């Protein structure tokens, strides 16, 4: 029990356990871990409220049906799992602006939220074009030895190193 209350575990322990989890989801649910698809499904669910016809006729939403499914519940589960973990270790904390951002960039709430929305938009768009995210390509696709996934995962880091470098200096 004490181990569950620790703030951080070794990255290797966490990585191996995620690897085992990824295999278990394949055996039990025939699914690999991935998070980004749930966001496009959510966008479809929201659009459906005000323009049902548009969503029904959209070619992309025919492939990624906007409904609550296994992957959508997975993302909700991530929120809950992280909440449990951070409460067990006492590291749960309301943070509006990350400390590193306040220290090195700006203390303005407006700036941080605007930049975060912009970053999220570019990332969400890129995830759909690439067909996956850090978990879908970076862990699941890479472990299946897919060339497409290895190229995508490497590009995630190249792009990330670039933008983090522009914001914080190389």
């Amino acid at each position, binding site marked *: 029990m004490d181990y569950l209350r620790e703030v951080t575990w070794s990255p290797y322990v966490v990585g191996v356990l995620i690897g085992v989890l990824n*295999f278990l989801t394949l055996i039990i649910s025939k699914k690999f871990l991935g998070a980004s698809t749930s966001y*496009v499904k959510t966008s479809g669910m929201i659009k459906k409220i005000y323009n049902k016809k548009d969503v029904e006729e959209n*070619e992309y939403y025919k492939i990624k049906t906007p409904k609550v499914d296994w992957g959508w519940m997975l993302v909700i589960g991530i929120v809950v799992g992280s909440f449990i973990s951070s409460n067990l270790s006492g590291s749960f904390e309301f943070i509006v602006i990350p400390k590193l951002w306040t220290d090195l960039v700006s203390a303005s709430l407006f700036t941080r939220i605007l930049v975060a929305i912009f970053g999220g938009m570019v990332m969400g768009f890129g995830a759909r074009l690439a067909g996956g995210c850090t978990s879908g390509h970076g862990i699941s696709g890479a472990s299946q030895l897919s060339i497409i996934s290895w190229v995508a995962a490497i590009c995630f880091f*190249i792009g990330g190193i670039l933008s983090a470098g522009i914001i914080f200096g190389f």
Partner: protein
Amino acid sequence: MNKLYANKKLQLFMGFLFGIIFGFLLQKGGVTRYEVIINQLRLIDFTVLKIMLAAVITTMLLISIVLPTGKIKLQPKGGSIKTSIIGGLLFGIGFGTLGYCPGTVAGAVGSGNIDGLIGGVVGIILGSGLFASLYKKLKDVKIVTKDKFSERSFFNEMKYHPLIYTIPFSFVLVLFLYYLESIGL
């Protein structure tokens, strides 16, 4: 097992349960924190890469053992080298700007990060919604493409037992991790 896959409500619950474990692990790994992700991209702290590579090695070896029994089927993603490069670079630029990725942002929300919720989650939904709206056009102008690598996995090209390929590859990845540790990263 077939009953297990067909039970939709049970599978929704399993998704939720697996998500809880995934979120728990991400938080324990520290990758739900903005600083840990940004410092990875600034090449100061290699926690993100260590977790990813340890997970890749583990899943890859487990697949190697079970795949020859025919009990599992792989699901390599579709697309092309082009979509991976353009989409991947865009994703990366957003990744470094937001400081979370789609999985870890959910974990960040769970551990109290407000910017993850009203910035990150909102942004990702907007960006992916925009992609869905533009999907047809992107296909017409050949930005969304498929090539010969679409839905292909090297596992399906192997002539010998998968472990013959994946053990040496794992060894190379472990050596790389060992190198990172040896230079104090």
